[in-house]
């Protein structure tokens, strides 16, 4: 019975709690409200991106372009605002941009049938290139002030809760509702579980995949806005960092199998908590950036190995050339 209840989600939650308690006792300043606030804030962005990545992975895809879309769209938007464009119009422009990126991703994956991981890897390069070449020539864009509710997204508080956390909660709630109650959401599970069966059953597989990547891009924009407003600026070089693997780590560690069709938003939240605590703890322990990177990536590799062992590839539905 105990074994039955110990699924990956619970193990991860338990680990997170143990780690939290352990760090609180051993690490000076971990339990400090200021630190916890920054932990929660950093984690929120990771969590928002994680929700997007979860959408992709549940549908047996993956989106590596998310970390290019996020800074480029947000930085372009800030650029437009700094050039005097009204916020709503800049937001609309950024929205149009990310929707376009999502459509291109989706069409490449659904209609041209390029493997998702490949299409989004290349799209990440292309989006970053477009950003550097035309939209945001400089690395960092800063907010030049101005009084608007918009700038409070990253820094404000509602009832004492930091707004990034509220945004994360909102995105997670919407995604949960979408996956749980809307037809396209259910379809994504079906497609992820067995794309061929989904197609034979009559699900609009291809349009659903396009929709999926549009949603992911929009979520990336939301994450970008939160990041930009929280840090009063955004650096497009994030696209070149390994942060996208942190996002995958959150999702896979949370228990969403890479073979698709399994897991939900709860797994993302659990995974986010664990990674947040881990990252924060490592920072406080004063581990160097490179050592942190090694640790994170080794944990990610271990997580994927465990995932492969727990959710082996389904030879019936795995397609030839699935790499």
């Amino acid at each position: 019975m105990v074994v039955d209840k110990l699924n990956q989600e619970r193990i991860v939650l338990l680990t997170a709690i143990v780690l939290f308690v352990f760090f609180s006792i051993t690490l000076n300043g971990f339990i400090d409200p200021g630190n916890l606030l920054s932990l929660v804030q950093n984690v929120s962005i990771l969590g928002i991106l994680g929700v997007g990545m979860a959408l992709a992975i549940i549908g047996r895809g993956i989106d590596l372009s998310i970390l290019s879309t996020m800074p480029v769209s947000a930085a372009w938007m800030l650029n437009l605002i700094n050039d005097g464009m009204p916020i709503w119009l800049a937001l609309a422009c950024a929205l149009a941009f990310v929707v376009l990126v999502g459509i291109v991703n989706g069409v490449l994956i659904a209609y041209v049938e390029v493997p998702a991981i490949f299409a989004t890897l290349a799209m990440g390069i292309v989006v970053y290139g477009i950003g550097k070449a035309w939209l945001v020539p400089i690395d960092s864009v800063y907010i030049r002030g101005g009084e608007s509710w918009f700038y409070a997204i990253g820094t404000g508080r509602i009832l004492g809760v930091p707004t990034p956390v509220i945004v994360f909660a909102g995105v997670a709630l919407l995604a949960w509702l979408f996956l749980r109650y809307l037809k396209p959401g259910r379809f994504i599970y079906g497609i992820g579980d067995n794309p061929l069966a989904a197609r034979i059953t009559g699900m609009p597989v291809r349009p659903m995949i396009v929709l999926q990547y549009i949603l992911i891009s929009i979520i990336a924009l939301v994450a970008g806005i939160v990041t930009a407003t929280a840090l009063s600026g955004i650096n497009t070089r994030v696209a070149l960092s390994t942060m996208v693997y942190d996002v995958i780590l959150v999702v896979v560690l949370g228990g969403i199998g890479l073979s698709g069709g399994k897991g939900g938003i709860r797994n993302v939240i659990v995974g986010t908590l664990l990674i947040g605590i881990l990252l924060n703890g490592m920072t406080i322990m004063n581990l160097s950036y490179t050592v942190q990177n090694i640790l994170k990536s080794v944990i990610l590799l271990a997580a994927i190995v465990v995932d492969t062992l727990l959710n082996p590839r389904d030879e019936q539905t795995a397609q030839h050339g699935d790499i």
Partner: protein
Amino acid sequence: MAASDTWTRWRYRYVPDHIIGEVLAKNWIDTLIPVVFLAGVLTFFSIELPGFLSGSNLTDIAQIYGEYLIIIVGITFVMMAGGIDLTVGSTFAFCNLAALLVINTMEVNLALGIPAVMLMGGAIGLVNGLLIGYLGMRAFLTTLVMLIIVRALVDQGLLDYGQTVMSGFNPSAAWEFMAIGHVYGIPASLIVGGVVALVGHIVLTRMRFGWHVMAVGGSRRSAYNAGIHVKRTVCATYVLSGMLTGLAATFYAARLSSAGTDVGKGLEVTMLTAAVLGGISLGGGRGSIVKAMLGAIIVLLVQNSLIRMGLSSGASSLVLGAILLLAVAIDVRWVKNRHKVLARTYVSPTYFKLPPLPDTAEGSGSDYALNDRLRGVEAIGLGELDGPEDVIFDDEDDLYCGGRHGDIIRFSAPDYARWEVFVHIGGHPLGMAFDREGNLYSCVGGMGLFRIAPDRTVTKLSDETNRSLLSVVDDSRLRLADDLDIAPDGRVFFSEATIRYEMYDWMVDALEARGNGRIICWDPKDNSSRTVLPSLQLPNGICVEPNGQSLLFAETWGCRITRWWFDGPNKGRKEVIIDNLPGYPDNINRASDGNFWCALCGMRSPVFDLALTMPSFRRRMVQKVARDEWLYPNMNTGCVIKFDADGNILDVLWDLGGEAHPMITSIREHKGWLYLGGIYNNRIGRYRIPDADPQWTSNADYWGKRS
């Protein structure tokens, strides 16, 4: 003849449409795309960039190209086995650092240092290989994660050893040669790269390991079932890739002696782009070293030129990413739709006009008037045979016939009730003939010409002929050897129905109405085969005439029988003796009264005759209509005709309704009986010929009475 008809005739005679399909069916067509791309890139940049083809620029490019070559050979192996290796970027940086540390700083001898660095690369590859090969993890994600792990290790290594490395210097001449040396203007790295590529090509195409790699990439499950160690093979490709990356890194280290944080960054995407652009398919099984080399040179030229054109790093990564996407999109669509494109273009009909169909109605007075004389013939081996295309008898009156299972079956005289498998050859044994010594010769569809001695030893006589100069399809291989006969001097003349279709597709050849077949002569003197009569419309039956100097052959889709002298004063002359048959002639054999029997395997219909004059209609049909709905010649009813040496029709035997013998492909007279074979039939028919010589046998007629 109407003007439009003339025009159509000339247009289809002189425009070689069929070449398009044949070119598309070639394996090297995949390589054509990158070659065209390369030509485009070269033209564009030599116009845009002055000095693009200058010596100094080329030397720069050649040095880097050597390093790229070494790496991409490894990647090719990985991708051919169905994997992908993104770790190369970090492995490269790691091995570069290691090489500087080991060779530059510690001044280890190159003969030890380079293998040591390669082993380090191989170790990283081994981790990949174990995870992907043995644990069955996804190659893309695993190597991506390994990429960041190794990159993190490199960053840490740079923090620890960055300063030490910079101050090192190895004075060895070999090290210097690796850096700046060249032979006849070819840099050292390119020489090594060329050697690696050559060895890689030989291993991939000629050696066991390479074949295993291709088999695993082509179909993992089949490779496993065939007994290939799939896991080990996959693992080995990653190790190989890691080691080669290590080798390339030593050249880089020798050349630049620098260990920055950006060494090898993005190399994995560059290499991936190069491989895919060259035409190495994601998912494995398709590709070659040459394609990888092409892809690498294209990517290198584009990269190099974009930098020289002064594009920002963003724009050049945009261009590379876009090329990558485009290449993958083309690759994915091409691999998926290649067979569809081929199916649409391969069948290439031409114009062919037959004279008006002769009357066959009962009581019409026509030579071919219907009768029911084959009704109620005796059946031999009913339900036990599957596709006896031809029937023949030996001196003991035993009956031999082929079968779809690749056997030659022998029925024992005199009642032909008992049978045994005489020999198993494979393919589908079709036409048969006995020679002077009592050896049985058979044309085996899909295999070639075979001789079976009385003691059942099977000898392959011919499975290829001379390659014609301008043929795009490889016409040296025999696809569908059909019928044969033996000249008095032992030469075997045999027909090959078509060079454009395989055995299972032979009827599609009817839609083309082009002379795709030929007659080949096998000469026992030097055991050689040569095409003697090319471009025939499905040549089928062959019968050497008693004079020993000429033969008669039937062209099935041409509906005619032709005499051709292969010897004697008329050597080389060809004359049509019967044209405008009411059906499609198949095998021809001698009759006891000096005349000839011919089987018509199917009857012409006005609709198909009309369609033959409308090539564009048939092309449209092939492209728009499902294969099962195509208009084919009628093969559901046939007959037997008897004709004399001048081509006069003497007799005709019909089976109305086609109950016992719908499609007759061969006839053989033996001791007063006529035996009927059918390639799709389940029996051999036996018809008593009135007034025939009851002692006449074909063997005696050909070779005289044997004692």
